[in-house]
């Protein structure tokens, strides 16, 4: 395995490690190993066969020679003569073999007739075959030697004269002497003089049948080795050619069926990656590949084509989804803008109105929030104020907020009182609120002439009020249930009197529940403190002070709730407050005095050209209120009651105040009677004050210095 990755290789290295080159090398290596093994086996078999053939030839020759020799000559006397002389020699003489002193002992043998015949005989046979030598000798068991009798060799350097002997291994002596005539008699051995020889022989018997000598044929294995060498050369040559041929063919085959297709796939992949980098989609690099190898490579190409198609499809889907997401994001941003634009957000909102100033702000925690504020003039004299917080966050809350905002304003614009408005909104929302969302609403209507604030609270935070000579304080008003929570919820309204200079602050829980990094809440105490720090500021300055205080408190901690605030500064109409006339009368509080009081007031009303309807309503109010004082204030005794008539101008209005010293009693504190009950279920009490509240534009009560002071006001 290469040590570096293919990407780090140069061209030469790549070629070296390519599949084709490796196949080529592997084929050559394999073929060489196989060839060598075949060679070894072949060589062995060849040597065996050749050796066998040589030995066989030598054996046959020696047998033929021996047979013929036995018939033509008796070698017994010659062999015995030499043997006798040999055995007669002492060991030291025997050691002189080859020397002339030794040969002298056998010198006369050469002249013997039978020796010469035998030698000629052997020479003739030697010439007819390609054996190395064929000769006559006997084995001497005692000295373990072969003793030559006749050798046809001409070369003096190699020729053995009669009586010459050579030492031979014991096993050869034993084998030859004890041969029983079965198989071939031979022995293979290495000699110093002749190299590797295979000696094969056949015994010759004399007339008496005694083995006297052996006809021996030597076959030189050197000859065989040289033949094997040429065989080896031929073998190696043909192997080389064959191996190379096979390797080249294998490499070519590999290149065609494996390397080329893989390279095609690789090129396609490269082109694919390039396309992707350059942002081209819809490529068909894998799909147009034509690989039909029918094997794993084709399978790979098909899988890659499938993958390419899938990826193209996936990419198309992704593009569509991304586009969709972008569209949703854009629409959400648009929704945020629309939501923000729904709320009055141009300040000063009423530059033409010197009698009040209002400022509000909303910082949503998410893109779109559920908080909202609202303010609007219901008519020239009545300012509607809304502060609300929808449950939940995000788009659902924003949609719910829209509905709530529109409903509150629409009902408010019909002139209904805050309690009625919330009742109507609640009924409307509850009628189809499957998502079970709800909204807390504080809704108030500020009478810009009198400063009377009529409000109802549907589960919202306490408003904060600062009277001109007082401090910012929470107004712990009565909470109704949240809007959208319960169909049967009823919202009770209450009244507050705002003196000119008063400031009303409304907010959502995002202010009080802003948290710092330790999880501590901002809380209403800190909020009041912040308000007090800017108590005489404009609404904008006051909101700014709270906003800064919250930001300082929160620090880097993330905010989860919207931050929504509204502040009204009630300035009042300086001219509108001037009293034109004020008249009063004090009488004993009895029913009998009601007509007198009525006449007294009517006299003033007639001066104002009061419409009959308004006058009638005022008369009824006097009947009710003075009647109440007569009945209950001093019960069971009687006491005095003062009636004061004040006329205001611009707009024209009359205010009638009833003052008594009786038991403290706030007629406005009682619940309004349920006017929807059937006759049999109706109670008789409470209707009078209810009627007064309905017909008069303002009714206020206070108990001061031991006096019940009740004022009604009617615009004329």
């Amino acid at each position: 395995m290469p040590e570096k990755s293919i990407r780090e290789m140069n061209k030469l290295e790549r070629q070296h490690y390519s599949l084709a080159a490796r196949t080529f090398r592997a084929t050559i290596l394999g073929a060489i190993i196989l060839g060598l093994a075949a060679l070894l086996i072949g060589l062995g078999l060849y040597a065996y066969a050749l050796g066998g053939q040589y030995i066989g030839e030598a054996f046959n020759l020696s047998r033929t020679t021996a047979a013929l020799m036995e018939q033509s000559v008796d070698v017994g006397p010659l062999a015995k003569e030499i043997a006798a002389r040999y055995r007669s020699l002492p060991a030291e003489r025997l050691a002189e073999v080859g020397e002339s002193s030794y040969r002298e002992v056998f010198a006369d043998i050469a002249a013997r007739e039978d020796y010469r015949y035998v030698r000629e005989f052997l020479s003739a046979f030697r010439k007819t075959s390609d054996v190395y030598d064929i000769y006559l000798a006997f084995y001497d068991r005692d000295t373990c030697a072969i003793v030559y009798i006749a050798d046809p060799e001409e070369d003096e350097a190699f020729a053995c004269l009669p009586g010459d002997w050579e030492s031979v291994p014991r096993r050869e002596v034993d084998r030859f002497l004890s041969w029983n005539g079965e198989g071939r008699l031979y022995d293979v051995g290495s000699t110093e003089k002749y190299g590797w020889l295979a000696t094969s022989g056949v015994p010759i018997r004399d007339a008496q049948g005694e083995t006297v000598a052996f006809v021996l044929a030597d076959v030189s294995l050197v000859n065989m080795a040289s033949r094997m060498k040429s065989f080896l050369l031929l073998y190696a040559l043909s192997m080389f050619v064959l191996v190379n041929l096979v390797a080249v063919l294998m490499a070519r085959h590999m290149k065609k069926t494996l390397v080329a297709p893989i390279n095609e796939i690789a090129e396609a992949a490269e082109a694919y990656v390039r396309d992707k980098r350059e942002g081209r989609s819809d490529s068909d690099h894998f799909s147009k590949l034509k690989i039909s190898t029918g094997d794993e490579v084709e399978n790979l190409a098909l899988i890659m084509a499938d993958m390419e198609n899938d990826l193209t499809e996936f990419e198309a889907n992704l593009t569509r989804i991304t586009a969709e997401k972008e569209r949703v994001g854009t629409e959400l941003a648009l929704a945020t803008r629309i939501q923000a634009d729904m709320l009055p957000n141009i300040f000063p909102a009423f530059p033409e109105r010197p009698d009040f100033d209002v400022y509000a702000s909303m910082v949503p925690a998410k893109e779109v929030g559920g908080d909202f504020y609202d303010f609007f003039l219901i008519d020239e004299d009545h300012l509607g104020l809304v502060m609300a917080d929808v449950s939940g966050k995000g788009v659902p809350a924003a949609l719910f907020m829209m509905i709530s905002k529109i409903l509150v304003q629409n009902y408010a614009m019909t002139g209904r009182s805050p309690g009625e408005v919330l009742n109507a909104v609640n009924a409307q929302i509850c009628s189809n609120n499957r998502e079970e969302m709800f909204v807390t609403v504080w809704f108030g209507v500020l009478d810009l002439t009198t400063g009377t604030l009529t409000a109802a609270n549907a589960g919202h935070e306490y408003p904060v009020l600062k009277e001109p000579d007082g401090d910012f304080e929470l107004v712990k008003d009565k909470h109704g249930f949240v809007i959208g929570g319960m169909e049967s919820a009823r919202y009770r309204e209450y009244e507050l009197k705002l003196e000119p200079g008063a400031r009303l602050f409304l907010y959502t829980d995002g202010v009080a529940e802003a948290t710092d990094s330790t999880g501590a809440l901002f809380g209403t105490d800190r909020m009041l403190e912040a308000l007090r720090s800017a108590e005489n500021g404009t609404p904008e300055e006051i909101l700014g002070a709270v906003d800064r205080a919250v930001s300082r408190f929160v620090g880097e901690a993330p905010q989860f709730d919207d931050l929504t605030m509204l502040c009204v500064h009630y300035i009042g109409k300086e001219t509108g407050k001037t009293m034109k006339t004020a008249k009063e009368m004090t009488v004993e509080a009895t029913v009998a005095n009601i007509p007198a009081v009525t006449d007294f007031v009517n006299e003033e009303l007639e001066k104002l050209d009061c419409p009959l309807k308004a006058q009638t309503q005022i008369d009824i109010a006097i009947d009710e209120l003075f009647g109440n004082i007569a009945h209950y204030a001093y019960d069971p005794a009687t006491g005095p009651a003062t009636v004061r008539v004040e006329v205001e101008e611009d707009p024209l209005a009359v205010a009638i105040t009833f003052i008594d010293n009786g038991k403290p009693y706030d007629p406005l504190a009682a619940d309004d009677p349920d006017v929807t009950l059937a006759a049999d279920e109706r109670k008789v009490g409470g209707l009078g004050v209810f009627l007064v509240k309905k017909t008069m534009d303002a009714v206020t009560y206070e108990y001061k210095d031991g006096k019940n002071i009740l004022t009604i006001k009617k615009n004329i």
Partner: protein
Amino acid sequence: MTINTTKNGTELCLAPEGRLDTVTAPELEQAINENLEGVTELTLDFAGLDYISSAGLRVLLSAQKKMNAAGKMTVRNVNETISEIFEVTGFCDILTIE
């Protein structure tokens, strides 16, 4: 206040004039109570009535409750002021107004 009373067998018609308020309401109540014996059809004619206060409403409610048990009660010739009061107080649903 004057109350014109017309009784015809089981039919009683009362027509109060002027104002029906804390002072005068007891008079109407008395007139009704005195004549109601055996009456199954009570008619209140408000043609001459200027206005009505809660004391008057209380009398009407009481009379209506009685007539619910004894027969029927009708109020007729109601002017705009009184009609509005009936409206506000829910009496328009309780009374039979012609």
